[in-house]
């Protein structure tokens, strides 16, 4: 069975490897510091580490889509903005 029907490209493979690396990283983090670090952040939401990763990834997707729809390519600005956003989410949300 080949995977040619899935039409892989190295760019999409790298994207999914990044997502998988995030999940593996979260598993290792949980293993080192169990409990998920629940807290109530500035949005008054009760979040764990997993919630914060989800909010970061989902928000980053919309930052990139918004950038693409308004400013167009390249997306370097959106990627930097996403990293800042993810840092803020993990630090304060």
């Amino acid at each position, binding site marked *: 069975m080949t995977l040619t029907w899935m*039409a892989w490209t190295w760019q999409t493979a790298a994207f999914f490897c990044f997502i998988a690396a995030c999940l593996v990283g979260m598993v290792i983090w949980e293993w080192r510091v169990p409990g998920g670090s629940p807290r109530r952040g500035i949005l008054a939401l*009760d979040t764990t580490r997993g919630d914060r990763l989800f909010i970061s990834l989902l928000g980053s997707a919309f930052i990139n889509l918004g950038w693409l729809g308004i400013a167009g390519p390249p997306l370097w600005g959106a990627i930097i903005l996403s990293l800042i956003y993810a840092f803020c989410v993990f630090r304060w949300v």
Partner: protein
Amino acid sequence: MNEKAPYQKGWIFVIPVVALVAFNAVIPLMTVVNYSVQETFGNNIFFFEGIKWFQAVLTSDRFHAALGRQLAFTATILAIELPLGVAIALAMPRKGPWLSVCLVLMALPLLIPWNVVGAMWNIFALPDIGLLGKTLNNLSINYNYTQQPAAAWVTLIAMDVWHWTSLVVLLAFAGLSSIPDAYYQAAKIDGASPYAVFRYIQLPKMRRVLTIAVLLRFMDSFMIYTEPFVLTGGGPGNATTLLSIDLVKVALGQFDLGPAAAMSIIYFLIVLLVSWVFYTVMTRKEEA
């Protein structure tokens, strides 16, 4: 020693579910992501295009129009079905033989397949032979959902309300049934009005089931395809071309897999975002 071990092997039982979800959800989603950055003319030959299709979809008037129609449809049916469902649930008997009759009547629309619902309403609302269409025209109301966009919208919303309000009713009724009699007795002793009983006892106790109702109805109505496709086919013109109908036109009608995949991902992200926001907002107050 009744303490449970801190580490259990329960996760082993989750593996079959993970494998099943991987096959029916993750792998197709990965394929869609792969298609969204490529162009194909068939025969499994692809050309890398980068983010071109995403930009094309995001700046397309056609996509904006379909998204606007989709949001309008979902907002309208939620605004009708939720209050109506709660009102019907409140009006239903709590016990006795009529309860079973009401529950069966409420469950009936939910048992009908979606394409049958579309076909039923298609015939029911036809202006020349349908019971509804013919009656309205005999009452001198100019109604023809095959030619008038407003009539098509009214028919589409009426069909969805008919089909899915029962789900809200059953969920709300389940929530009401779980309220102990002691709450009502306490309210009676305090001389609470029917509105106060609803506002401070019934509504808070229904919050969890209404959260589920909003989420289910939002996701289902936002992804609706079969019923409007059978009823109007997206017409007249593009008046009822909702996002899912437009997506199928692009993917299967035009065989533009790249733009269709990009559109699917944007569609999926919108559903994911709105569902998360609804869930977070509606469960936050409960936990506070």
